[in-house]
Every structure is written in structure tokens, then in C-alpha cells.
């Protein structure tokens, strides 16, 4: 980036125009005209669709806003009330369980997927394509599929476990019983999200020079040692990026929980995005709803900053 330099002395009029052009180029950069024209649409979109709504959200969260009524400024009251609200506290805990449970298993399955796809197999691109399907399929469709698979009376999961394999004596209402609902929605989130981990790790593993593995093999490293000392360090940065990215996405995942359980039974799967939606469009309390969404904003902001740094660093290499 160029350093702003004060315009030189200004002699004649013709020279002023040229001098101005050169001066502008010095200050704004050599490609400033095309650059400004090309980024203006993005700048407008970012301002109108993200920056403005974001600021508006912060303002609304500091008000009592009922649907159809003007907002009344109340300061941090919404946040304070939420802090002592038992239902909200449970939603926070549920969100963390949902997120970390999902991300942990996605990470493990992703590593497994990348490892098998880098091992000497036939039809590698076919397998890669198959395993990526949950990632490209519409999430709503996947959630509806699992709603049907998990169905307590006619669902195929119970059919398989009870009638075909005889593992369970009788069917389970996977999504309607408090004991299994959370595990079930987490399972669906893992199913949908692990391919992204896998494909990213696969890309990282392909970037590790083969000589490193050969050298390790010459030194007598076992398969596990090679994985531990060559593979893992080689994909460390990608792992950090993918885990942080997935943490943000999973924490804010709305559709899977909304379609499978709507937060039930009895609030056992109520996570923060669903609570935001319910508070806004069920209870019609917009201010409080946005306070739910923004409650963990400091943590989200820190995560985004750290992640953005890693992503930009990854690019520069």
C-alpha cells in the first residue's frame, strides 16, 4: 500500500491537472479508479446488509421492542434479565453441548475421512464425491430425512434396531424423549458437517511433501508416529481454521434443531438460535430476542478475529 505523499508545488494550469492525477495516484494507489469502482458494490452490500443491520441489532437489543410498537430504550435490562433466566441459561448450556459435541466428532470423522482418502485406494475421486454429498445436499432435506428415520413408530432406525438386528427390545422415540433428543440432533449435525472437515484435511495432507514421510519411515517411525509427527503438524493450521469455522457455524445452526425438535422435548434441545427465533416470532419480543442472539457477542467477536487472522495468514503463504 502506498504512503500518502503531499502534492508537489503547483505551477501552471495544465500541469495542475496532470499533477493532480499523479497526486491522487500517489495518495489513493496506482489502480485507485478501477479499484474503487470494482469494490463499491461489495462495500455497499457489506454496509447495507451486514454493518447497518448489525448496529441496528445492538440498538434493538437495548430496547423493549414489541412487534408493531415503537422501541423503548431500556439499556442493558434485556441482558440482565436473561442472565437470571433459567430457560435462557439452559439454552446457553445446550448450545455449548450441541456445538462442542458436534465439532469434536466432526473433527475425528474428518481426520478419518481424509486418512482413508489419502491411502492407496481405487476410484478416489468417486469416493470423495460420495462422502461430500451431505455437505452439498440441502440441510432442510437432510433434517427432514432424519426426522423420518428417527420417527418413533414407523422410523427405519427403530425397525433396524428392533426387528432386523434385535439390539433393542422396543422402539425409542429418538427425538421425543429427553434422554436421546440432544444426542440425535448432534448426530445429524455431525453427519452433515464432517465432510467439510474431511475435504479440508485432505487438501492439507496433499500439501505435505512425500519426503517427510519417507524420511520418517527411514528413521523407523511407525504408522502412528508418522501420523503424530508428520501428518498432524502438517495440517495444524487447517485444523485450527476448520474447527473455529465449524464452531461458529454449529453454534449458530438453526435449521437442524428447528426442524427436528423445535427445542423440545421440554427445552432439552433448545439452543440459542432457536430461542432467538421463538422469542422474536413466537413471543413477539424483538428486543429480548436480539439480546439472546447477541448475548455471547464478545466471544463470537474474539473467535471471528482469531479465525480471520488464521485465514488471511493461510492465504499469504
Amino acid at each position, binding site marked *: 500500500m502506498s504512503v500518502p505523499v503531499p502534492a508537489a508545488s503547483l505551477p501552471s494550469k495544465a500541469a495542475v491537472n496532470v499533477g493532480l492525477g499523479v497526486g491522487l495516484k500517489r495518495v489513493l494507489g*496506482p489502480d485507485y479508479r478501477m479499484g474503487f469502482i470494482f469494490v463499491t458494490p461489495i462495500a455497499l452490500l*457489506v454496509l447495507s446488509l451486514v454493518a447497518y443491520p448489525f448496529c441496528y441489532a445492538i440498538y434493538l437489543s437495548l430496547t423493549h421492542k414489541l412487534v408493531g410498537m415503537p422501541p423503548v430504550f431500556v439499556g442493558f435490562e434485556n441482558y440482565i434479565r436473561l442472565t437470571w433466566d433459567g430457560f435462557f441459561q439452559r439454552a446457553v448450556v445446550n448450545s455449548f453441548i450441541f456445538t462442542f459435541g458436534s465439532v469434536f466428532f466432526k473433527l475425528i470423522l474428518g481426520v478419518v475421512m481424509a486418512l482413508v482418502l489419502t491411502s492407496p485406494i481405487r476410484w478416489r*475421486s468417486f469416493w470423495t464425491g460420495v462422502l461430500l*454429498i451431505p455437505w452439498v445436499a*440441502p440441510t432442510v432435506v437432510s433434517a427432514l430425512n432424519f426426522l423420518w428415520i428417527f420417527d418413533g413408530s*414407523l422410523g427405519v432406525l427403530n425397525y433396524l434396531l428392533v426387528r432386523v438386528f434385535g439390539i433393542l427390545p422396543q422402539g425409542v422415540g429418538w427425538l421425543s424423549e429427553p434422554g436421546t433428543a440432544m444426542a440425535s440432533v448432534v448426530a445429524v449435525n455431525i453427519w452433515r458437517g464432517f*465432510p467439510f472437515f474431511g475435504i479440508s484435511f485432505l487438501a492439507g495432507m496433499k500439501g505435505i511433501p512425500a519426503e517427510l514421510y519417507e524420511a520418517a519411515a527411514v528413521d523407523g517411525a511407525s504408522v502412528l508416529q508418522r501420523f503424530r509427527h508428520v501428518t498432524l503438524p502438517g495440517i495444524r493450521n487447517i485444523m485450527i481454521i476448520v474447527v473455529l469455522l465449524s464452531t461458529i457455524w454449529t453454534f449458530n445452526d438453526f435449521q437442524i434443531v428447528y426442524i427436528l425438535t423445535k427445542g423440545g422435548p421440554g427445552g432439552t434441545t433448545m439452543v440459542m438460535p432457536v430461542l432467538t427465533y421463538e422469542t422474536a416470532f413466537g413471543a413477539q419480543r424483538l428486543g429480548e430476542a*436480539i439480546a439472546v442472539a447477541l448475548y455471547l*457477542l464478545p466471544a463470537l467477536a474474539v473467535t471471528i478475529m482469531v479465525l480471520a487472522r488464521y485465514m*488471511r495468514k493461510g492465504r499469504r503463504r
Partner: protein
Amino acid sequence: MKGRGSATIEKTLSYAVLGALAIGVLFPFYWMTITSFKTEEQMRSIVSMFWPKPFAVENYQQLLAKTEFAAWYGNSVFVAVSSTLLATAVGTIGAYALARLKFLGRGFMASATLITYLVPPSILFIPLYKQMQGLGMANSLSGLIAAYPSFTVPFVTWLLMGYFESIPEELEEAAMIDGATRFGAFYRVVLPLSAPGVLAAGLYAFTQAWNEFLYALVFITDGKLRTLPVGLASFITGDVYGWGYLMSGAVLTTLPVIAAYIYLQKYMVEGLTAGGVKG
């Protein structure tokens, strides 16, 4: 001898794991498809569990005849195609500027775009809804077309920045020495070279718009104006409720995405790995 044995074991293990993962991944789609060809009667009496006998197409007929599914399909195509074209155009020129051109504020804009990509919709959907209401665009498809760039544009931009950065700068310099303008170098040299990347990015934008649920759920109140994901989900709370119905709709909703994906799998995987995350 020992090496060979362990290689065989490794191979067998790889195939076993692959098989298990593939079954886990494909089973829900298999189940969706065969359910869509079963009658309610077949389902309730738990006959022909894993292969419908006979194959029934009533679900599809009824879905198209008795519900607004066809209208939803049209809505989804319209919204996804329009917002994809918009996002790809804006994202392509923006990404080129951020990747290549030298101007004041470039670093800041690049960071802003990336951060925008990371801000989750769950904190934006209420204010965006109010905003669209204020503009009279709530409960209309144009509201969705206007809102979807909030996630497609940053994504496309970020993806294509990586793509443009990987194209050697010397090509443009050579073109400019031959008399091309900066814009000409972009339009005639860089753009044709990045066609696969632009295609992949556009395809991603399309699937994201096609699959979007939260904004469409919140913005649209008129049943006729729903997009497919929201329309499908409305079957589970609506009066007409049958799994065969629902699954035939699910199959038809998945088809375009999967078709596009199979056709462009190579580009998509490359796009994802080359531009998406690179560490």
C-alpha cells in the same frame, strides 16, 4: 514380506472404513427415495420395507397436483438464480480488485469482506427483516434476492480472491505492455483463465441460496411465495401430512443440487480446497 502384509491390511481397513462412511452418508438419501415411491398403506403396514412393491408414483402426482410445490419450485429457481448472478458478478470484480489492484483501503476492505463472511445469519435475521419491512420488501421474493448477497457475496469474493492470487501477475503485465488497459487485462486475460473458479464459486452461491432456510422462513408469510426448503418444512406442521409426500418433495428439492454437483464435482472440490480454506 512384512511390508506387503501391512499394506494389504491398510488397504482392507481403508475400504472397510470407506464402505461404512459411504453407507452412513447414502442411507438417508436411499431411504428418502424409496419412501417417496411407497404408498401410505405400504408404510403403515410395514411391508416391502427396503424396496417398494409396487413402485407408486402417487406421491409425486399428488404433490404436484394438490400442493403449491410447483410454485415453490419456481420461487426457489428464481431467487437462487437471480441472487447467484448478482453475487457472482459483484464478487468477481470485487475479488479481482482486492486480489490484484493497488488502491487505498484495499486491506481494510479485504478484512471487512472476510469478517462479513463469518458473521452468522442468526444475529442478522431480525434486523434484516425489519429493514426489508421498512423497504416494503418483506414477504416478497425481491426481499430474499436482496438479502442473500449478505452471505453469498463475501463467500464468492473470498473464494475468488484465492483464485485470482494464484494466476501469475506476469500474464497481465505482458498484456498491458502489449497495449491493453488494466480493465482489458482483467477482461481478456484473467477472466477467461478463471472461468472454472468463477463457475465453481457461482455454483456454491447457487447451492447456498437454494438451501437457505432462516431468512426465507422469517421474511415470507404468504404460503404461495415460499421457497422449497420452507415449503417442505411446512408440510410437517400443515394439515396434509404424509411421509411419502414429504419425501417426494425432498427428492425433487435435492435433484438440482446433486445434478449440478455431479457435473461440476471436480471444480467444486478444487474450488473448495484451493480457495475456501488454505492453511
